[in-house]
């Protein structure tokens, strides 16, 4: 029997349903997709969405991480554990291998490897012949991402052409590409940082411990906090402080800064997120500040 009032979904249910629909379109349209899984909060949400989209079946794609070799151990351990729990295949390709091959050449030994991930990613796409890569980027993260389609076409050099994107109408997605080309797919395009935290709370998703407040040795550089690690040691003259911090986003150690925080539960993180005055990338990314268009530039070079 049909009910007479039109039912509508809560905003979180709507976002989840859209993301499931997008993942299933990838599965239906692409012959060899892959889901990029870093162990970070956005990709953790993506795994839950993939479970909702495909269980009781297996995922119709493997997971892949492009490892810069400069990731927090808590995060890579979590990545491995989560993939094992799900019983899904995890591929790890490393920027260090590209360096050894000579396809990634650093300007100096301490240059951030973050942007060089694009090279390793493109090599992995070629190695496995992936025709689609599903990623957890969100449009609220950055002004160039805010412009990107959900199904985003990349040419054989991995390049995004922001001035000539495919029209994307209704929910009729076009994932077609020729051999060597590639589609990047962003199922949580329309989620904000706040939505992600709400979803993590609702679904009770487990996170790497460094997302919660903990005491960490840091030095202050360019107005941001840089954790003191083997990869980013203190320099002479630095003052090392022990500060209670958490990460809003996890990524390459050399360019991801934590924020000061006491939030040691998801509820408290949500409360802090609701009143924060600084965007996720603004607070935490040391690599985006260099130029006004650095994300757009990197995307044109094949970055996620």
């Amino acid at each position, binding site marked *: 029997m049909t009910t007479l009032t039109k039912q509508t979904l809560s905003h979180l249910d709507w976002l989840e349903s859209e993301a499931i629909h997008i993942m299933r379109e990838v599965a239906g349209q692409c012959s060899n997709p892959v889901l990029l899984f870093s162990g970070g909060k956005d990709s953790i949400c993506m795994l839950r969405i993939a479970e*909702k989209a495909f269980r009781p079946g297996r995922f119709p794609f493997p997971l892949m991480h492009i490892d810069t070799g400069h990731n927090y151990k808590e995060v890579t351990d979590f990545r491995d554990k989560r993939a094992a729990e799900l019983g899904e295949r995890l591929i790890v390709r490393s920027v260090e291998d590209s360096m050894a091959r000579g396809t990634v050449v650093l300007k100096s030994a301490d240059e951030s490897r973050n942007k060089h991930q694009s090279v390793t990613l493109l090599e992995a796409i070629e190695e496995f012949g992936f025709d689609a890569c599903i990623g957890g980027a969100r449009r609220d993260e*950055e*002004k*160039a991402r805010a*412009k990107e389609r959900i199904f985003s076409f990349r040419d054989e050099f991995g390049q995004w052409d922001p001035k000539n994107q495919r*029209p994307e109408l209704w929910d009729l997605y076009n994932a077609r590409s020729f051999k060597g080309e590639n589609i990047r797919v962003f199922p949580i*395009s329309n989620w904000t940082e706040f939505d992600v935290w709400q979803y993590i709370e609702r679904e009770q998703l487990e996170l790497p411990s460094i997302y919660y407040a903990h005491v960490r040795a840091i030095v202050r550089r360019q107005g941001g906090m840089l954790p003191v690690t083997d990869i980013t040691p203190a320099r002479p003259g630095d003052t090392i402080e022990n500060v209670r911090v958490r990460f809003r986003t996890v990524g390459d150690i050399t360019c991801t800064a934590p924020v000061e925080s006491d939030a040691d539960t998801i509820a408290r993180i949500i*409360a802090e997120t609701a009143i924060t005055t*600084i965007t996720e990338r603004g607070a935490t990314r040391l690599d985006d500040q260099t130029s006004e268009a650095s994300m757009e530039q990197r995307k044109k070079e094949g970055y996620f």
Partner: protein
Amino acid sequence: MSAIENIPAEIQDNGLLRFLTCGSVDDGKSTLIGRLLFDSKTILADTLHAMERTSKKRGMEAIDLSLLTDGLQAEREQGITIDVAYRYFTTGTRKYIIADAPGHEQYTRNMVTAASTADLAIILIDARKGVLTQTRRHSYLAHLVNIPHIVVAINKMDLVDYSQEVFDRIMADYLAFAARLGIEDVHFIPLSALNGDMIVDRGERLDWYRGPTLIDLLEAASASHVDHQESFRFPVQYVCRPQDAANPELHDYRGFMGRVESGVVAIGDAVTVLPSGRETHVKDIQINTGSLPQAFAEQSITLLLDDEIDISRGDMIVKTGELPSVTKQIDAMLCWLSESPLDPRRKYLIRHTTRDSKAMLAGIEFRMDINTMEHQAAEKLAMNDIAKVSFKLAQPIFADSYAENRGTGAFIVIDESSNNTVGAGMIL
């Protein structure tokens, strides 16, 4: 620990509303969105600082609010919008997805992209210029894709001394042209995006206007596209056959995965599978591993059926007795989006729900002249043309008219030689 635990009150969820800003070049669409986010305190400090720096570098005194959405280098260089930018904000009761569409004719296809998913359109008009060709084009497109709410915002009122006369004259002009299109439900609102009048705050200079502010209109608009009960339509996206050896219970599992495009379905309902026409009943409705008694439009679910029927991606499950038309010939309104013209001699691919079919143009009945709203004869269609056409299909599709059902009335045209999406169609 601090008081942060009790800061945000439990958010009452009034769902989600998607809207776009459109209209002619430079009438202030991007500025309006910047203003909306600024006045609703959604722009965070670091974004504001970056906008301030860029504005200063360009020799502007005040912050240029359009920088918030014009995020591409090329857009900032030229001070125009090229492609849609998506922005998000919440009022505490509702989440909004904003699409800032470009005004330039050249980028109309990007406006169509934004319009196709919108529940509400804000059509801006520069108070000094009145109704222009692009105003008409965007209004027509908004109407064509059937956006349920249309708000005409007459902007830059500060440049016409906040004159009610100007406002009334433009409103009359617009209504005359809207009537010819059959656009009925329109709201008019005077604004200054630059100064922030009538957006979140009423301001002091538009006393003669008694209607709601823009944000009040947004909060009150219903997010639903339909005012009638729609039939159940379930295009199959993917078939789940786990055949997990470790779990013998799953050996016979066949789940049909998809999103309910419209209507409602409940366990036990009699359904028909298209194209085979086979009938069966709904055994279970699942999300993840849980079971639901019923599911409704926009939910992504898995359907299990009583009988073993051969079903694959591209098939459609509907309620028995509520069948769509099964057809290899469609009449439609078509927006052509590609630089290379629609060529009547070529074959294209049509994607309708989860189904693809080869297609050939059977005829162009007329092309719409946006200025005069007259029907013209046409042999070919160029980029941004809107026309009534018919297509012959190699495979049947399961369609309703777009007016009746967006999900089963819409299709896209793909050029297989480039894989590009070249057309957007609405079945009549």
